[in-house]
C-alpha cells in the first residue's frame, strides 16, 4: 500500500473522503489531537468551526480592507482639494473653496469602493483564484456532498488508510503533496472503489 501511495501520489499525502460532515470534523479533530499540523481539508460548503479544529488563523483580509478604506478617504480628499482649491477654485453659492463638509459623499463612496475592490482582490490572491478554463477537482463530489481530509503519509501509508477507515472515511485517495495546497491531484489507490462512482 505504501508503495502504491508513493507511486500514485509522489509525495506522500493521503486524503480520506467522507460522506458525513460530522465524521469529517471528528476526523479533523482527531488528526490535530494526534499532533498533525500539516493538514489540508476540502469541503463543499463552509463548515463553521473547522478553522479552529484545523488550527487555522483568522483571515487577514479584514486587516487589508480597513486601511484600504482609509487610503480611499485620504486620496479622494486630496484629489478634490487639488481640483477645487488649487487647480480650479470657483465661488459656488458663497461657500469657501475648501468646503470639506460637501466632500463627505464622494470621499465616503470612494473609500468604500476602494475597500470593496481590495477585499475582492485579497480573496482572489489568498484563494489563488484565476480564470482557468481547465481547472477542475478530480472528484466532482468535493463541490457537492463529500468532504476530504489530507494527511502526510509519514512512511506508513497502510496505517494512515486504516486510520481513515476507523474515522468513517468511505474511501482514500493519494494526493500530490506539493500541490495539496494549490491544485490537488488525486489518484485512486489500487484495490479501492473509484470515488467517481
Amino acid at each position, binding site marked *: 500500500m505504501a508503495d502504491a501511495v508513493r507511486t500514485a501520489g509522489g509525495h506522500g499525502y493521503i486524503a480520506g473522503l467522507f460522506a458525513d460532515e460530522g465524521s469529517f470534523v471528528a476526523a479533523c479533530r482527531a488528526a490535530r489531537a494526534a499532533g498533525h499540523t500539516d493538514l*489540508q481539508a476540502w469541503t463543499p460548503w*463552509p463548515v463553521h468551526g473547522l478553522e479552529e479544529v484545523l488550527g487555522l488563523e483568522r483571515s487577514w483580509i479584514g486587516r487589508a480592507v480597513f486601511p484600504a478604506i482609509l487610503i480611499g478617504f485620504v486620496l479622494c480628499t486630496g484629489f478634490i482639494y487639488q*481640483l477645487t482649491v488649487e487647480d480650479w477654485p470657483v465661488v459656488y453659492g458663497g461657500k469657501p473653496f475648501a468646503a470639506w463638509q460637501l466632500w463627505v459623499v464622494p470621499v465616503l463612496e470612494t473609500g468604500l469602493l476602494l475597500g470593496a475592490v481590495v477585499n475582492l482582490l485579497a*480573496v482572489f490572491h489568498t484563494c489563488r483564484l*484565476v*480564470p482557468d478554463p481547465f481547472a477542475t477537482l478530480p472528484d466532482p463530489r468535493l463541490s457537492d456532498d463529500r468532504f476530504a481530509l489530507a494527511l502526510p503519509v509519514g512512511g506508513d501509508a497502510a496505517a494512515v488508510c486504516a486510520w481513515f477507515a476507523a474515522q468513517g472515511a468511505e474511501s482514500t485517495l493519494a494526493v500530490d503533496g506539493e500541490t495539496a495546497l494549490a491544485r490537488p491531484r488525486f489518484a485512486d489507490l489500487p484495490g479501492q472503489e473509484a470515488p467517481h462512482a
Partner: protein
Amino acid sequence: MSAPREPELTARQITDDLTAPIFRLPSLQWVGGFLTAAGLAGLFGLAILAYCVEGYGIFGVDNTVNWGNDIGSYVFWIGIAVAGTLVSSVLLLFRQRWRTGVNRATEAMTVFAINIAGIYPLIHTGRPWVDYWLLPLPNDLSLWEQFKSPIVWDVFAITGYATTSVLFFYLGLIPDFAAVRDRCPDNRFGRLQRLLYSALSLGWKGTASDWRHYERAYTQFAWVATPLVVGMHSTIATLLAVSLVPGWHASVFPPYFVSGAIFGGLAMAMLLLIPLRSAFSLERYITIDHLDRLAKIMLTVGMIVLYVYVTEFFTAWYSESAAEQGQYWYRLTGEHKAFFWTMILCNVVSIQLLWFRSLRRNLGVLLLVAFMVNAGMWLERYNIVVLSLERDHLPSKWTAYAFTGWDYIILSGSFGLFFTQFLLFCRVAPVVSIAEIKATLLRRGRHGADQEASHG
C-alpha cells in the same frame, strides 16, 4: 390524517434541484416570457436610438418639468437596486440564516436594476456622447466637476454602488459556479459548459483555508455595501432636498427615500420569487416562510413610508409656506390627483392586508400586493419629481406634464430589459446559493428545530 412528510433534503438533492435549470432545455413558459421581455427590451433600445437621432424633444419634458419620466424611473430602479443589497447584506450582518433562500435572487435583482437605472441619467444629459464629462478626467478645457454639487455626489454614489454590487454578486457565485462546473455532463455541449464554468469559478477548490478567507471577505462586503447603499440613496434624496422646489425641500427625504426603496424593492423581490419558485420547482428552498418574513418586513417599511407621507403633509401645513402648502394641495386635488390617490391605494391601503397571517401566506394575495406596491412606488416617484416641478414658485411657469409615446415605450422597455436579464440569469446560474443553503439546511437537519428557532 396528516400530510405525508417530505423526505429529508440531502446535499446531492440540493445540488441537483438548484443546477437543474442550467442543464435542461428551457420550458415553453420561460421561452414565452423571455421573448416578451426581450421584445420590450428591444423597444427600449429603439427609444434610445430615436432619442439619439431626434434629440431629447421626443420625450414629454419641457422647460418647467425638465425632470420627467427619466428621472422618476431612474429613482424607481435605484430603489429596486437598494432593496436587493439590503436583503442580502443587512440580513447577513444580523445573522438571519433564512436569507439564504432569497439572497441570490435579490442580489441579481440589484445588479440588473442598477444598470437600467444608470442608463436614465445618461440619457437625461441630452448629449450622451459627452457623458464621460461626468467623470473627473483631465481635459483640454481644464474644467473639473463641481464637487459642491449633489449631482456630482450622485455620480460617485451610483458608480461606487454599482461596482460594489457586481463584485458582491460575483463573489457569492464563485463556489456555485464550481459546483456547476463539476456537474457538467460529458457530452459536446457539456464540455463547452464545463470550460465556461471553470473559467467563471476561477479554479475554486473549496479548501478549509479558502472558505475561511471567502467567508471573511463575503461578510466584509456586507459591511461595505450597507453604508454604501444607504449613502447612495440618501445622496439621491439630498439631490432633491437641497433644491428650493416645493415638495422637494425637506430634510426627511433621505430616510424617506431609503425606506421607500426597501419597500418597493421587496415588492419587486416577491414579484420575482413567487413565479420563480413555481417555475423551477424551488418550493423547498424559497418557502412560504421566506415570503411571509419578506411580507412582514415589507409591511414594516410600508408603515414607515406611510408615516413619512403624513409627515410631509404636516410639515407643509406647519411651515406656513404658501408654495409648500399649494404643492401638497395640488397633489390632493390637482389635475393629476388620480396619480396621488392611486399611490395611496397601492402603497398604503393594499399593504394593510399583510397584517393577517393567512393573507401573508397566500401567494395570490402576495403577488397582488407586490404588483400594487411596485405600481405605487413608481407613482410615488412620479408625484415627487413631476408634480413638484409642475407647481414651483413661479405660477407663470406652471404647466401640465404628459407622457409622449416614447415615454411609454422607454418605460415599458426598461421593465423588459430587467426581466430579460433576470430570465437569462435563471438559466445560467443557480438562483439560490447552493453552498449557503446547504450550510443552512443541512446544519438545521443536524441540530434540529431548536437551532432554526434560535436563528429566526
